[in-house]
């Protein structure tokens, strides 16, 4: 790869990481606190009365889902707010006037979202260790699912940032789409508990595949096969990246 591209990509990525680390109280602390509360309330207090789920304690069962929930939320919101803020303050123009190609701009922003999501994934995992001994069935599966999921939602966040005209616009999708899909994505329950009809409806929820893929990496058990989850993640990533590339390359929302 051309050295300009490597330097530019590194610069955008470092800038993105510096941004979320500079405001760590807003970006890193809240997920740690929220997840601690989930572990205490759902895991320790209510979980003890629930008993086992798919052969694991309730706490063991929800840990991968809760980590994945943090990864999804943070990768999305990192890029949507950073890209929109660059549009709002007009510093996106610094990139538009420079010789950086569109795909490098995308990778830089997405890389920032993936970095934040990974860091939060590690923080939440560390928090979970205070409540339960975390099993690891396959580290490779965990890493692949984490990277593909955070890349997917970081890219989706960028598309949100492209279309957003106000700060409200970047909170609409997380509030009204991502959160419900995540809660209904099998974070807190096994899909096998649902009636057949609702199991079929859940199959339409893409987050189900990510949560289950991730859970497979930790527990070695899942409602859905990892191959299916992996294939869908790759297809979704290709689609959203193509859409994001077209939008930014055409200058939608950033060039007049």
């Amino acid at each position, binding site marked *: 790869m051309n050295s*300009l591209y490597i330097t*530019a990509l590194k610069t955008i990525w470092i800038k993105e990481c510096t941004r979320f680390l500079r405001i760590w109280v807003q970006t890193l602390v809240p997920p740690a606190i929220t997840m601690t509360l989930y572990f205490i309330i759902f895991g320790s207090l209510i979980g003890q009365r629930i008993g086992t789920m798919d052969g694991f304690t309730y706490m063991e069962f929800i840990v991968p889902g809760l980590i994945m929930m943090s990864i999804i939320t943070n990768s999305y919101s990192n890029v949507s707010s950073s890209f929109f803020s660059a549009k709002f303050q007009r510093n996106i123009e610094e990139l538009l*006037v420079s*010789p*950086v190609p569109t795909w490098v701009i995308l990778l830089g922003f997405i890389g920032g979202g993936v970095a934040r999501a990974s860091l939060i994934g590690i923080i939440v995992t560390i928090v979970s260790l205070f409540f339960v001994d975390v099993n690891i069935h396959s580290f490779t599966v965990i890493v692949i699912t984490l990277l593909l999921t955070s890349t997917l939602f970081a890219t989706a966040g960028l598309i949100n940032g492209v279309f957003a005209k106000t700060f409200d616009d970047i909170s609409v999708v997380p509030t009204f789409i991502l959160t419900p899909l995540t809660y209904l994505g099998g974070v807190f329950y096994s899909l096998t508990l649902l009636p057949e009809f609702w199991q079929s409806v859940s199959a339409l929820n893409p987050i189900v595949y990510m949560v289950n893929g991730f859970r497979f990496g930790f527990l070695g058990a899942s409602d859905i096969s990892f191959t299916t989850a992996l294939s869908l993640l790759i297809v979704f990533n290709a689609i959203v990246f193509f859409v994001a590339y077209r939008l930014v390359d055409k200058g939608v929302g950033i060039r*007049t």
Partner: protein
Amino acid sequence: MNALQISGLQKTYPGGVKAVKGIDLCVEQGDFFALLGPNGAGKSTTIGVICSLVNKSAGSVSVFDYDFEKEPEKAKQCIGLVPQEFNFNQFETLEQIVVNQAGYYGVPRGIAKERAEKYLKQLELWEKRSARARELSGGMKRRLMIARALMHEPKMLILDEPTAGVDIEVRRSMWSFLQKINEQGITIILTTHYLEEAEMLCRNIAIIDKGVIVENTSMKALLATLNIETFVFDIEDNASSIVIDGFETRALDNHTIEVDVPKVEGLNPVFEALSQQDAKVMSMRNKANRLEELFVRLVESSKKESAGE
């Protein structure tokens, strides 16, 4: 070699507003070029197209023989832009802003840090390198944008109203800095509403109005076309009774007169007439900057032409 070559440039915004209606423009390498025009004339749109911030509707732009369509990366490497509006991240430090900008042009971080020190020092911002951009005064923010635009050492610098809203001391230090870098070989294109600035700094000029170029010549040639200048005389007393034969004279009050002086006549006959009438001249000044008079005339005639269309 031409630093900038624009042919048949057009821009129609969504909604049908035609901001640029077929501009042809050529700026030579090493020039200090003024692009002037009233608000809404199409200056910033033209600059936006040159710098890839605005998608053009038709025409072509090339920079140092690199066509934007064919070799956009090489063309962009040649340009440094100082935009009209502040467009940096207000929460980043000055050093972060300029070092990152260099990175977008492929300048390795080590070299970028050396250049940051060089340009921030030259623009008297080095002491503020760790301050957040939002903490700077307006003049400092303008200088920061100049430093940022120079970080990849472009061959051409485009400044869109760089001295808007800055005090005269800062403005003068920016003028001398721009003159210095122009002498070092950087081509400069300047848009400004301070016509004194354009007259003092620029060698060539284009005046744009309603999306078309109404004048494109050298500053000297343009100023030579000004055959009448208006002077304002502050007179101690009885200014309203003064008559100067052969000169158009207007009394503004009992202490001030305006006199239109044809270049061929000079000021001597005016002073003679004033002495003969025992008028004590306390002070004298140009009513307007010379370029300003020409600018107003050209824009007025362009308005009349379009009204007659």
